[in-house]
């Protein structure tokens, strides 16, 4: 585990630290909002440890606070989180071998840790980026949620800070290098188009999964790249 921190260079550590700060602020707001909706103090903390997926947590809390059925809240959260299955296929090898690493590493799988891993070239840096991002964001997110749940309404409007633009920008900055490959770019643009069109009438989570069909637009490029390598 120590080698992970040694492999991290200063730039990568600074980038992860920045995301960590933003994540903490959103965590504070999640804790504060959940409690202000009249839900119990322990709920945001339990969700953040057990589920550890921001979008699904906000969705779950929103449905429950509106008096919705808990089964509906679970199903909605699971639909939002189903994307972790293809994520695991893509970056499963960075977790390492052995059950402890696989179990702990799987729980640390979030958009940011996946994106940070995919943005690195060498396997060792991938592993370091994934684990460092996953561990620090787990700590920051949970500390933020505890602070928000107890501290109340300090930062409930993160939109005023522009944080709703910061998180997509984090992911965009991390995937742009991969988008310089024409096949990947075609696939991604097709996927975004599918997601945006279907989002008008499908429940949250499903449009992102349907975006996977965008891969079809990049298939030919993959074949050529392989032939070129052969």
């Amino acid at each position, binding site marked *: 585990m120590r080698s992970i921190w040694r492999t991290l260079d200063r730039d990568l550590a*600074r980038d992860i630290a*920045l*995301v960590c700060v933003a994540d903490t602020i959103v965590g504070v707001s999640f804790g504060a909002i959940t409690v202000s909706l009249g839900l*119990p103090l322990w709920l945001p903390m339990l*969700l953040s440890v*057990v*589920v550890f*997926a921001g979008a*699904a947590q906000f969705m779950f809390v929103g449905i429950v606070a509106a008096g919705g059925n*808990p089964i509906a*809240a*679970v199903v909605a959260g*699971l639909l939002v*989180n189903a994307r*972790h*299955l*293809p994520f*695991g*296929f*893509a970056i*499963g*090898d960075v*977790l390492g071998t052995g059950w402890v690493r*696989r179990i702990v590493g*799987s729980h640390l799988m979030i958009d940011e840790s*996946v994106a940070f891993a*995919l943005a690195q070239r060498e396997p060792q840096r991938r592993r370091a980026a994934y684990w460092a991002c996953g561990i620090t964001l787990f700590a920051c997110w949970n500390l933020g949620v505890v602070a928000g749940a107890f501290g109340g309404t300090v930062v409930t409007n993160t*939109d*005023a*800070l*522009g*944080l*709703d*633009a*910061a998180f*997509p*920008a984090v*992911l*965009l*900055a991390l*995937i*742009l290098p991969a*988008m310089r490959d024409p096949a*990947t770019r075609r*696939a*991604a*643009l097709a*996927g*975004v188009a599918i*997601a*945006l069109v279907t*989002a*008008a009438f499908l429940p949250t989570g499903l449009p*992102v999964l349907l*975006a*996977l069909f*965008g*891969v079809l637009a990049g298939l030919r490029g*993959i*074949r050529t790249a392989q032939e070129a390598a052969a």
Partner: protein
Amino acid sequence: MTAASLVVATVVLGVGTFAFRFAGPILRSRVEISPRLERLMAMAAIVLLAALVGIAAFLDGQEFAGIARPAGIAVGGVLAWHKKPFVVVVLAAAGTAAVLRHLGVP
């Protein structure tokens, strides 16, 4: 809603989410993966992340998110495409959205 049903719902969501997360690494370790499939799976993850960015940029639930957010993300995207440092990209995206909202742009 009772506390017990909230705990059960949270745990079910947590276990289900973990199952999604755990399935990929486990199935991967059991099958031989060709370089082509490897590239395809990496591409699929990039496509998913791109779709998340697209949805987050333009939509709040099923409603249009307004102008400030996509404008901020676009500024970040342009800076990232020109290989500006990550910190600059993220702060510029947040700053653009925050300043636009401060000026009354939705």
